[in-house]
């Protein structure tokens, strides 16, 4: 298909608008950050406009590598959990009558509207020793005495997944709603039990949608900044925390910018690899 070439001043204006938005909100800020990442730090001041690769040289510390790896891993891990839980959830949601679907979607969107601060503090109370759910488990005889589960790795996982789950469902909803309902039925008539049908036909035919959801939720999780500080121990702090620390508390803007640029590069590379992997289709080979 050949797209019609826009003509006339008005048509050019309509192209100008997205270009301007992209320029003002993305290209210019990123350009400034990229530039600053090559500048020299002025202790006690801001930065000196001087080309230097020192910031990138200073990146490769054990701390930076560990925090980078942890950020990527926790984001990927939570994305995996969210999609694993969200995919069957969304599938069952799309099989419901229309009116019930709307109720569920409204509830999910209202969860999205909660601020991360509220979510994080709510979880930290729920997982605390004094007022948390462990007290309930003691009552039920499952535990001997109340325990403190926050801050910690699993508390952080709970908080991050809680924030990302509604987002995951919203990303998965359109492709699942479009799935031909005859596909699973065809599998049933061919001898597949409901569970086999789910894995071979529903998951199989929506492979690219699943990969896309994983990538988007992963990218969404990378930006987590508040939740690790409330629900995690210092070793669970993500790169966003480290960057803020560097930029605001140590006034080392050039190093913070270099960290951010490097983080973005690594994330983009991972996302690109996942997308390439998701595009390969066994049936599409010509």
């Amino acid at each position, binding site marked *: 298909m050949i797209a019609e070439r826009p003509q006339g001043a008005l048509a050019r204006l309509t192209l100008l608008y997205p270009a301007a938005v992209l320029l003002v909100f993305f290209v210019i800020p990123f350009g400034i950050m990229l530039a600053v990442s090559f500048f020299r730090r002025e202790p006690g001041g801001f930065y000196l406009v001087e080309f230097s690769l020192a910031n990138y040289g200073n990146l490769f510390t054990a701390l930076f590598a560990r925090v980078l790896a942890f950020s990527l891993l926790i984001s990927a891990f939570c994305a995996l959990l969210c999609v694993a839980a969200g995919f069957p959830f969304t599938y069952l949601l799309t099989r419901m009558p229309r009116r019930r679907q709307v109720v569920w979607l409204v509830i999910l969107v209202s969860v999205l509207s909660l601020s991360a601060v509220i979510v994080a503090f709510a979880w930290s109370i729920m997982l605390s020793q004094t007022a948390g759910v462990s007290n309930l488990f003691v009552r039920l005889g499952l535990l001997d005495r109340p325990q403190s589960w926050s801050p910690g790795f699993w508390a952080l996982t709970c908080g991050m997944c809680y924030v990302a789950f509604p987002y995951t469902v919203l990303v998965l909803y359109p492709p699942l709603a479009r799935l*031909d309902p*005859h*596909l699973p*039925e*065809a*599998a*049933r*008539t*061919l*001898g*597949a*039990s*409901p569970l*086999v*049908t789910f894995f*071979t*036909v529903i998951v*199989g*035919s929506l*492979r690219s949608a699943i990969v896309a959801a994983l990538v988007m939720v992963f990218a969404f999780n990378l930006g987590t900044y508040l939740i690790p500080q409330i629900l995690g121990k210092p070793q669970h702090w993500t790169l966003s925390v480290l960057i803020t620390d560097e930029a605001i508390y140590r006034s080392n803007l050039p190093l913070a910018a270099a960290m951010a640029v490097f983080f973005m590069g690594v994330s983009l590379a991972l996302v690109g690899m996942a997308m390439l992997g998701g595009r390969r*289709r*066994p*049936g*599409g*080979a*010509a």
Partner: protein
Amino acid sequence: MPGLFLDKIEKRFGGVVAVRDVTLEVPHGRLVCFLGPSGCGKTTLLRMIAGLERPSRGRILLDGEDITDQPAHRRRFGMVFQSLALFPHLTVAENIAYSLRIRNVPAAERRRRSEELLELVRLPGYGGRGVSQLSGGQRQRVAIARALAIEPRLFLLDEPLSALDAKLREEMQLELRLLQQRLGITTILVTHDQREAMTMADWIVVMGTDNRVHQTGTPLEIYRRPADAFVAGFIGTSNLLPGRLGEDGRVTVGRVTLRVEALPAGALPGGAVTLSVRPEEIPVLPGETAGENHLPGRVTFVRDVGSSVEIHLDCGGMAIVSASTPKNRPALRQGDAATAVLPPAACVVLAA
């Protein structure tokens, strides 16, 4: 009892009745067609047989065994869906061998079977292609091959040809019927196309918008002796004339009284009836002539499409259509006086 037996099947969705009290038998090796307009419940009936829908009432028996509550994946009924429902993430061969793969049949055996089936549906060498690379007719064949791969006890087809263009559809009707005859596989076909039903079926079940079965019979029985006005109108075209049954067994239509050969059982003299006469049974004579079952009138339209000629007449306010072959074409033009003859043997009297 051999074959499939439906015992007083009924299906309701909420308060809406989709299938009303259907009892019928599908003998082994035959092709039975559920024919009816959209919304008559024919697809719902097929889905109940496949196990995709549960009947609200009644039983489904296969070779005497009650399978009403057997889940779809245990029935081993091959089904071809209207949308075909080919798995988009699998190749042609993987689609066909899907049922074998989930039963853990070894790969070599799967390859052999899918090649065999591709040969059967005349698509040899297409196994490696993606489903999206096929034309409509080719996809159709793949869907048929996939359903046949499970060696089905019953072959179910839900309007399988409706997505194809008219010419290809006619070809596929023959091909599918020949395949069914060769394999001797008990088949149920759902369609709204009476020509398709008459081409393919051993036995036709006509369903109406009231979600009931109106008539079952061989294609020609249904065509020649429709049970009621709905069937007469739905199968082919027919002249349906409202009339009244006289004491002498004759039927008065408008100002003319006609002799008929057969009356429906239980027809009461003085009662309202509908006369059904097929267009090809009505000869048209030029001019106004008198005689038994002669209806004088005027030609309102001539539809000459080459292979057949239709003459539309206005006989004293009644619209009558006659059809003939080009060879027997009467020399008549629009506006000419003419007489339609309704032979007594061709007049089918239906309860009004």
